């Protein structure tokens, strides 16, 4: 039945793939929200990349003279923290910490999420129920308990943070990928692949996964935002990276006590982390808008 679809630009299903890297970025130009997000993320990525050249001081060096008056001054544009360490340098180096730990955690979560999501969605049956049960159980854990159990018991370190964040993010990704797989496996090209004798792993990884790329990229940006918040929260609750390496959440915790007299010490890292997370969320929204449009 050749069918005339509803008037106006057609709105293809969410699953319409965004193919071709350049095309994607070119399209991004069209959504202002996406552009602002991309700009913020790019800004912090560059700051993290060129941290050694940008930071005026060693982030851990104490400037004893500045102890008397830590507010922003000529030498310290953003002032110093309560230990006389330059805030600007610490924020710059802090961005490097966040922008290495967060992506690794998200990537790990995605590897696990995609793997189990595909298996659950493709095989269905008992494997699906078991995996979904496990995912539900982990999801029903209060997040803070997961963090504490992993970090408070095995010691605060970047590796443990990655494990903690991966452990909490993976179930949600499993659920998304499973949903997408359930929908894609019904497509004719998957049946065609089966009929020419492709192995199940080939079908999952080559036929199904690439078509789930659209929503997964959008979710990845959102996930980055949540992960950065999670790392910040861990830092704020004292479960973050060990001193003296600067990490934004920890910086807020250390200087929160001086809010009433030197608010700049806590406000600066808060502004930094918020701007980066807003960046990722706007980027995600922009990408979603585009993937719906083309």
């Amino acid at each position, binding site marked *: 039945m050749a069918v005339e679809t509803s008037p106006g630009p057609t709105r293809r299903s969410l699953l319409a793939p965004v193919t071709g890297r350049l095309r994607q970025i070119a399209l991004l130009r069209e959504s202002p929200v996406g552009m602002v997000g991309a700009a913020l993320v790019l800004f912090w990525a560059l700051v993290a990349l060129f941290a050694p050249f940008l930071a005026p001081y060693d982030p851990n060096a*104490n400037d004893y003279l500045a102890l008397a008056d830590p507010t922003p001054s000529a030498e310290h544009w953003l002032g110093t923290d309560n*230990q006389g360490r330059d805030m600007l340098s610490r924020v710059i180096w802090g961005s490097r910490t966040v922008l290495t730990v967060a992506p690794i955690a998200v990537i790990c979560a995605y590897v696990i999420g995609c793997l189990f999501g595909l298996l659950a969605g493709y095989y269905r049956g008992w494997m699906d129920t078991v995996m979904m049960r496990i995912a539900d159980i982990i999801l029903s854990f209060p997040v803070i308990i997961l963090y504490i159990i992993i970090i408070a018991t095995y010691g605060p370190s970047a590796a443990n943070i990655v494990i903690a964040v991966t452990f909490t993010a993976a179930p949600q990704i499993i659920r998304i990928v499973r949903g997408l797989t359930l929908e894609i496996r019904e497509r004719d090209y998957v049946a065609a692949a089966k009929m020419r004798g492709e192995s199940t792993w080939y079908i999952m990884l080559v036929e199904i996964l690439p078509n789930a790329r659209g929503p997964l990229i959008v979710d990845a940006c959102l996930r980055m935002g949540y992960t950065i918040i999670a790392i910040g929260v861990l830092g704020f609750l004292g479960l973050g990276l*060990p001193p*003296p390496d600067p990490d934004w959440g920890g910086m807020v915790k250390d200087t*929160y*006590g001086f809010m009433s007299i030197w608010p700049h010490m806590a406000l600066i890292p808060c502004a930094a982390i918020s701007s980066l997370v807003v960046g990722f969320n706007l980027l995600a929204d922009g990408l979603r808008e585009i993937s719906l449009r083309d």
Partner: protein
Amino acid sequence: MSEDLKKIHSYLPKLVDQLQEGRVDRREFLRTSTLLGLSATAAYGFAGITQKGLVAPARAQSNATVRISMRVGTLENPATYSWVYDSNVARQVCDYLTRTDSENITHPILLENWEASDDLKTWTLNLKQGVKWSNGDEFVADHAIWNLKRWADPAVGSSVLGLIKGYLMNDEGTELWDPKAIEQVDDYTIRLNCRSAQLAVPEHLFHYPALILHPSENGVFGVGSIGTGAYSMTEYEVGRKVVLKRREGYWGKPAAIETIEFIDNGDDAATEVAALSSGQVHGLYEGSTQQYAALQKMEHVQIHQVGTAQTGVARMQPQHKPWGDARVRKAMRLALDTEKLLQVAHLGLGLPGEHHHVCEVHPEYADVGFMKQDIEGAKALLAEAGHPDGFDTEIFCKGDPEWEPIAVQAMAQMWQQIGVRVKISVLPSTQYWEIWNKPTAPFAFTTWTHRPLGVMALGLAYRTGVPWNESFYSNPEFDALLTKAEGILDVDERRKVMVELENVMLEDGPACIPLWRAWFTAMDKRLKGYEAHPTSYFFCENWSFEEA
């Protein structure tokens, strides 16, 4: 005049001469004379200064309520209190036999007075008569003895045992060295027969867990507990709040303030500042470096400060690899500029640290010359010890109070200059207290509270085999010198021994001490009669509150 002095204690006349010849300073004289049984008024008379501390100015009774922000821990078992703030609540309900005030002078409270034998081995404690418990019973020797025996019982697990082990217990510390070690003379007199000489017995009786509890309650403290103090506890909720109400029938001068509340604001510095600034509380138990600047800004608040021997010790366990070599340990000390450390970690409040763990505040402090930072010297020592380009190591420390991790980070920066790269592992306090005195923590930073006597601190931390010797430091020569110093009454003699002790610590000791903390807190200006105490004790019966 000297006869009646001799009656009190044979050494007193010699002490008075040394005071007049200037060979002992006034503070040392006051402390030693009162310990030997001279009354505080007489001691001040000799020293020629007016007496501060005990005499509370006259103040009217008011039905005010004073709220203090302080952690409210678990109070059931006073004998095993680990934290001073727990004892601050019970101290208002029950009394101690003696009390060491902010000037380091020990006064009798539940005792009338005490007498020490010439060889400092026999102490006679005379109880004050006519003191009534809150349930009407009269306070008699049996009650005191019951408490003394309880502290001595290892099953109870009281830290008082650590202090009296040297002179009242047998070698293993499992029971009294002699059944008659704690002897009841009559209803109002108790005699302690010690195994070895000990000058500081009255001070030990004021160790914060040494509260005198009513035997009928079998050592349990709670709402409505029987006590001899000025207040009774009417409300108690762990982690939230404690309410103390003024009690009728207090044997001393009735307290001015009707209700005292301790409110637990958690260990979050900013919360306490906000509570103080918004008037939710009238004062803090203890100020932290984070709060200092904010507290200074508040007009309605007065900052009280006192120099103390409270510190943090970055100690190295010699049985572990790099720390075995005394040169390495000394190099670690030489790397530190304690002036700067005091500035960074504690806003300059207090004194720069001295690595032999004896503070100027201590009466028997001997000046052996301040150990300055010497980077090149430290590097030379390290090269000599086989570490030409330094080494990597790890230090454990607690996350709070705030000044500790800052001090460790600042020291790490300085150690880095001599090539020693220190990884800092901050542990939650419960985890830290699991490992602080275990071999699993070769290099760690532990806080030590104020002790009135230098030798007390050295004895607790560095004597071989003592439970709290966290660095497992064992130096027979050091132990001998220490026991000798504890027994010497003569201040001059003891100072000579102290010089040797301090030099051993500087040369061979396991410790780096960044600073001595000046303890401070902030109270509402309307709260009068509060004295900052080096071990942060509260004596609420001295307080009064004038409505502005």
